[in-house]
């Protein structure tokens, strides 16, 4: 039973691991360049889920804005905002990576007229 509780109680972490592995698999195993990029996005999104998970709290915790009546800050009442802020930065990085990768795909497509890795690598042995 404790095993089940362990899995269900931390389901967001399990989802993060599953998503990350899906993305990882797509980046490594897929032969189509667009699919690789999609895999990359899933991989990065999994990391966002992970970071958001470590900041969140169950049981009525809310955003860290102290109301006029509150006296002492009780950490259990507030969600840690820092991981979310880190993810804002990371999302910017991820979007830029995505943009660069799409630009590269465009260059590759114009040159080879295909996005299948096997066909691109066919003419020459070395890359």
């Amino acid at each position, binding site marked *: 039973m404790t095993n089940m509780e362990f899995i269900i109680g931390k389901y967001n972490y399990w989802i993060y691991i599953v998503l990350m592995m899906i993305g*990882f698999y797509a*980046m490594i195993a897929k032969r189509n*360049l667009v699919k*690789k990029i999609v895999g*990359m996005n899933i*991989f*990065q999104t999994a*990391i966002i889920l*992970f*970071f958001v998970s*470590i900041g969140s709290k169950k049981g009525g915790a809310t955003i860290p804005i102290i109301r006029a009546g509150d006296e002492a800050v009780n950490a259990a009442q507030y969600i840690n905002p*820092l*991981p979310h802020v*880190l993810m804002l*930065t*990371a999302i910017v*990085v991820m979007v*830029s*990576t995505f943009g*660069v*990768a799409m*630009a*590269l*795909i465009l*260059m*590759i497509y114009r*040159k080879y007229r295909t996005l299948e890795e096997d066909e*691109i*690598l066919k003419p*020459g042995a*070395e*890359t």
Partner: protein
Amino acid sequence: MTEHAPVLIIVIPLMAACLNILLGLWKKELSYPWAVLVTAVVFGLSLLLMQTVLSGGTVHYRLGGWAPPWGIEYVIDHLNAFLAVIVSFIGCIVAVYSRRSIEKELPGKQVYFYSIYLLLITGLLGITVTGDVFNIYVFLEISSLAGYALIAVGDDRAPMASFNYVIMGTIGACFYLLGVGYLYMVTGTLNMGDLSRILPGLSHSRVVYTAFAFFMVGTAIKMAFFPLHIWLPAAYTHAPSAVSAIAASTMTKVGAYVMIRIMYTVFKPAFSLEVIPMSAILGWASAAAMIAGSVLALGQKDLKRMFSFMLVAEVGYIVMGVSRGNSTAFTGAVLHILNDAFMMACLFLVAGAVRYRKNARNITDLAGLHQEMPLTMLALFAAALSMVGVPPTAGFFSKWYLILGTIKAGEWIFAAAFLLSSLLNAVMFYRVLETVYYTGEPTPKRQGGSSAAVNEVPLTMLGPILVMAVGVLVLGLFSGRIIDTVIRFTVPEGF
């Protein structure tokens, strides 16, 4: 001004990169002098930082005045300043070099090239000055993104090479980011100094082990450490000449720097080397890197591709020195970061010069080139001696320390790996230099005259090549002083 140097070193190239676009819209020719000026200023600032560190110890700079655990803190100690000087110096020299080669390889795109080039310098310098683990991730990605773009504009195969680099680089950066996340989970801080205070108490937490593993794999991908090096040869072979030179000489070194910081500042040597047997893991992997890099380099026809595989071997040298766990090997590794930056810059600049003049990229095309480009080939000769490790050159001294370090650790087999790798380098460069000096038709008589054969590259290209070649010799002669004034202080406590 002086107290703001740690942040100016990043803000200046960042702003300059944006201004460069506007400047380029107005007058296209201005972007080259602008880039050279900016990199020169940044080099001056990094020297100033080095001076400050040498006279007054570690510099702490609070961004926006926020106190360290909450705000981002820039920390510059001897190792940071050392790396910043290397990166900014090579950045400046390659900027000077890039004019003619970029004119030929990327006609009409100079303005954008220099903007991205300055962003690359920003990212690399950012990694070297920051004292915050998340901030390193951001700068790592700035430099990598600039690197992807610069590599992609190379020759025909460059976009595909760059795409593979994007995939691998993103995995590396994401692993690093996960490491940051796991550490944040148990410590609640991102500041390196803070982390190093908290982590010793958590050295048996499985979360910390996980974080350490992610950090190691992430940085290993970014620095092209042996089994994870596959993106590097293609990317650096097909990139424009100037980009290969700056990337090969600085990007892998900065990756090595991040690994040193993670292993010995964030985590302590007691954790990295004793709780987790990193010494053995990295030792065997880097021995494999040295041998495999050298053997693979032997089989290459393309000059830049051969140098790229040598770079893989050189990364192995550095990691071997870092992971031995004694001060001699560590000194050798830090010295080798400097020496290898110069050697690699010199080799890739020479390859770029050959490509510029002869439009050639294979080793066989070098035949008899000593008559046409005597000074360039002399520079190649100096760098080759240093790569092999012949005494007066820089390469000898760092290898000496590295080998002594492995012997001190009692690991003779790793010392043998160093010697074997050096031997393979000697074989390789013998082949290259034999082609340069002893093959090809003797003094091709042209209709022009008797000595019209000398046809060196333009001065803006020849100058940087010679600076690097002379640098290799000078660094060798002054290696004792460099160790005494700087490197001695970079050795982590507990060695």
